[in-house]
């Protein structure tokens, strides 16, 4: 196909509705990794993430005629994947365990109490920090977030969606995205600081 990269959303949608297999492939190629990663982060389970990935495209293909094109196709796919993931989380009853009203301070102060020792580990290069153990700590930290904060952080900071796109996927306001994002970042920063500050101490004994 000529000029793939420049095909507009409207053209892409028209070609999808015309049932061109190559265009379906293109849609899957450009979005599948993102969808899988979001599902994996939200669910923390490879098999379930793969199920959500397949469900997302199966549902999208079926519903393509009803898609009105008011949001980007990618945003629409994220939303389908998010809803599918959420359904699975509900089944697992995780939602009840992490309700919106769980005792997290809005200002994140509670988190900061835990890591009052403000060690600056931000100057270390990424590849030095990102050991297998550190990745595990990061995975655990994100898994421990309430779903509402986790989904916001995953879409906005990991996937790099804009505030508006994140709001569209989650069905909340841009301001709510900002609030959730801030809380998520405070939590994760605190958890990572606990870990990296400790590691920094062991690597660089006081002189």
């Amino acid at each position, binding site marked *: 196909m000529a000029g793939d990269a420049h095909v507009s959303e409207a053209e892409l949608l028209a070609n999808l509705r015309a049932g061109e297999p190559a265009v379906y492939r293109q849609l899957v190629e450009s979005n599948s990794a993102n969808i899988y990663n979001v599902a994996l982060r939200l669910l923390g389970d490879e098999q379930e993430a793969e199920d959500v990935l397949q469900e997302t495209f199966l549902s999208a293909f079926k519903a393509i005629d009803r898609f009105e094109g008011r949001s980007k196709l990618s945003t629409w796919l994220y939303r389908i994947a998010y809803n599918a993931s959420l359904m699975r989380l509900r089944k697992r009853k995780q939602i009840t365990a992490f309700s919106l009203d769980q005792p997290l301070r809005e200002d994140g102060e509670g988190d900061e109490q835990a890591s009052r020792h403000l060690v600056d580990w931000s100057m270390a290069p990424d590849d030095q920090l*990102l050991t297998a153990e550190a990745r595990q700590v990061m995975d655990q930290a994100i898994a421990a977030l309430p779903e509402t904060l986790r989904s916001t952080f995953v879409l906005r900071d*990991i996937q790099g969606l804009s505030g508006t796109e994140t709001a569209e996927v989650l069905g909340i306001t841009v301001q709510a995205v900002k609030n959730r994002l801030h809380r998520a970042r405070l939590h994760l920063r605190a958890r990572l600081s606990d870990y990296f500050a400790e590691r920094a101490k062991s690597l660089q004994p006081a002189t």
Partner: protein
Amino acid sequence: MSTEHDHANCRELLGQFSDYIDGDLEAALCAEIEAHLAGCPDCQVMIDTMRKTITLYHTQAAAELPSDVEKRLYKVLNLEE
């Protein structure tokens, strides 16, 4: 942590740090935060480590679909070549 520093101000500004990092704050508030950071190493560390936290998560996110997952996806969707 310096003793003469008024940390009530830190707490107030902490709520704006995310917007500050994202460049979503109006100029006046930005200036206030930057002036505060100049005299408050703790808040500077907060900002720097928060920024680093975001970068690390963004960096370590897997960018590619595992090939076996991809293969099964195309099969389910009837899009195998």
